[in-house]
């Protein structure tokens, strides 16, 4: 196999990925450093290496680092989910939002918060179960979307519409529950829904990582199988892609990733829309490279958004998901304005 057969983009893919990863590390360090007390980079590195001042070490390890890591994992996971969805629906405008996953997760969270609170508005079980509730909500919503769409699931636009319908029902129910529940929970739920990274702790991160690892491995394994999705449906099936089954499998994987991400960091679906675009632009079409790049960009975006929020809005805790949506939408719209050739 000759090296000449690699195209220019694929040749620079590893280099690009290295660059993005480096940017990510830098941003993460900045994210850890920034806060009510600014901790300079050398000190941050010092803490990681085991030394460092005690108060600094506490701040970094207990407060700042979990937040940054959670943002990285959540952003990365949902970015990969977005990539999968865009590939399988053959539409670069698809995002994890469209499956009703996010709204289902929100409903799960609200049911959990409202349902498991006693009269004094204290939670009767540990808050650690909230991600589980979110995950179950997300999974239920996705399952519903697929069950209802049945054979129509192979059409992107039909699936989108079923997703909108299921999402609408979930949104309405969520709203009702938020209104009859205690106000404190409502505020909590609202912040979560808008995408809040600031309330994670290490045990939650552990669970996220454990859940994420097998999912990501699976994604990388099937990455190569995604290649024919660039083609029209007939040709893709002509080279042996079992489209209906394959599609459902990918959707489930994407939904699982989204559920995991959303369970811990709230509704950050927009990251899943944009990160794959950036990935494709920088590393080209190779699926494995694009998946890795999507993950990195997703992590970058969410850490960046969280940083922006802290810089601009401190001491208010404006959810990072909001920021990604606000910053990202103009870019997304600009993307749409460019001539899209191959979209369904």
């Amino acid at each position: 196999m000759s090296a000449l057969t690699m195209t220019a983009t694929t040749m620079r893919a590893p280099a690009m990925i290295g660059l993005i990863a480096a940017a990510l590390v830098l941003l993460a360090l900045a994210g850890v450093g920034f806060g009510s007390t600014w901790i300079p980079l050398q000190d941050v590195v010092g803490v990681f290496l085991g030394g460092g001042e005690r108060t600094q070490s506490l701040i970094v390890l207990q407060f700042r680092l979990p937040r940054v890591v959670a943002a990285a994992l959540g952003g990365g996971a949902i970015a990969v989910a977005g990539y999968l969805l865009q590939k399988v629906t053959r539409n670069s405008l698809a995002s994890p939002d469209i499956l009703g996953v996010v709204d289902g997760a929100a409903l799960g969270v609200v049911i959990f918060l409202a349902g498991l609170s006693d009269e004094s508005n204290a939670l009767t079980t540990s808050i650690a179960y909230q991600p589980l509730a979110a995950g179950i909500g997300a999974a239920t919503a996705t399952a519903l979307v697929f069950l209802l769409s049945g054979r129509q699931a192979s059409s992107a636009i039909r699936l989108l519409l079923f997703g909108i319908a299921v999402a609408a029902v979930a949104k309405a129910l969520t709203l009702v529950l938020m209104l009859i529940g205690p106000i404190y929970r409502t505020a909590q739920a609202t912040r979560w829904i808008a995408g809040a990274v600031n309330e994670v702790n290490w045990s939650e991160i552990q669970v996220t990582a454990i859940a994420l690892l097998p999912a990501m491995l699976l994604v990388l394994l099937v990455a190569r199988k995604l290649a024919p999705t660039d083609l029209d449906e007939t040709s893709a099936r002509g080279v042996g892609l079992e489209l209906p089954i394959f599609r459902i499998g990918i959707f489930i994987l994407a939904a699982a990733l989204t559920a995991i991400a959303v369970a811990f960091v709230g509704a950050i679906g927009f990251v899943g829309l944009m990160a794959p675009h950036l990935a494709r632009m920088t590393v080209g079409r190779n699926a494995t490279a694009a998946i890795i790049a999507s993950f990195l960009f997703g992590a970058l975006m969410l850490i960046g958004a969280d940083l922006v929020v802290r810089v601009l809005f401190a001491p208010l805790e404006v959810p990072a998901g909001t920021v990604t949506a606000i910053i990202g939408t103009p870019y997304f719209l600009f993307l749409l304005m460019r001539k899209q050739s191959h979209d369904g």
Partner: protein
Amino acid sequence: MTDEPISPRIDVRELTLAYGAVKVLDTLTLPVERGKITVLAGPNGCGKSTLLRAIRRLHAANGGQILLDEMDISRLKSRDLARRIGLLAQSPSAPEDMTVEELVRLGRYPYQSMLQPWSRDDARAVEAALAGTGVVHLRGRNLGSLSGGQLQRAWIAMVLAQETDVICFDEPINHLDMAHQIECLEFVRALNVEHGRTVVLVLHDLNLAARYADKLVFVKAGAVVASGSPSELMTETLIEAVFGVQSMVITDPVHQRPLCIPIRNAAQAAE
């Protein structure tokens, strides 16, 4: 030549296919001989494209079966089927910024496994496909920058890279200009004559069908009306019955094949 009858490469037996309540194919039977060019022709909506797609198992049958080398195709795994029957879709599409080489490489999809990403066989097949269709010099070009004829060749190269014994073409020349139509069909014939591939072709143009077919099949209303050599089928009576056109059939002086000259719409003639 043995005395035993050679079993058809593809044997369509009593195939019924319906979209909901509408029967598109009705107990259709068609043996497809190996190593020949079989052309399916018929009026609009007769089901010829559906038949082709059914052969490639893009539609599930509601009744009857399709045998490939005496094996029911519904029992085959997708990978295996993709290694044995290739299909050039009617309106294929791919991202404009995909290169020719990337497209052709997709033809090796049924041969790739998780453990073995890209083998020497794959590389060899791709090179052969590029060379065979004469697009080696275009390998790094974006699909969007190609002319209609070049693009068609790139797609054919992809199907070639699949290295299947049977290749199906679903109306491959509809959108091509005259020069490229001939080029494409000559290439298809070369595939058959020089490389022994079994070809099943759906064509709209009756005369081109007659010119290139070893076996011509007239399909109407989801059933095979007639099949045989072009000279057997291209009679004025049969053409009127199947296509609803009154015509005169002469012999093409260049290719020594039947040539149909349409005169008038039979329905109008009856008024």
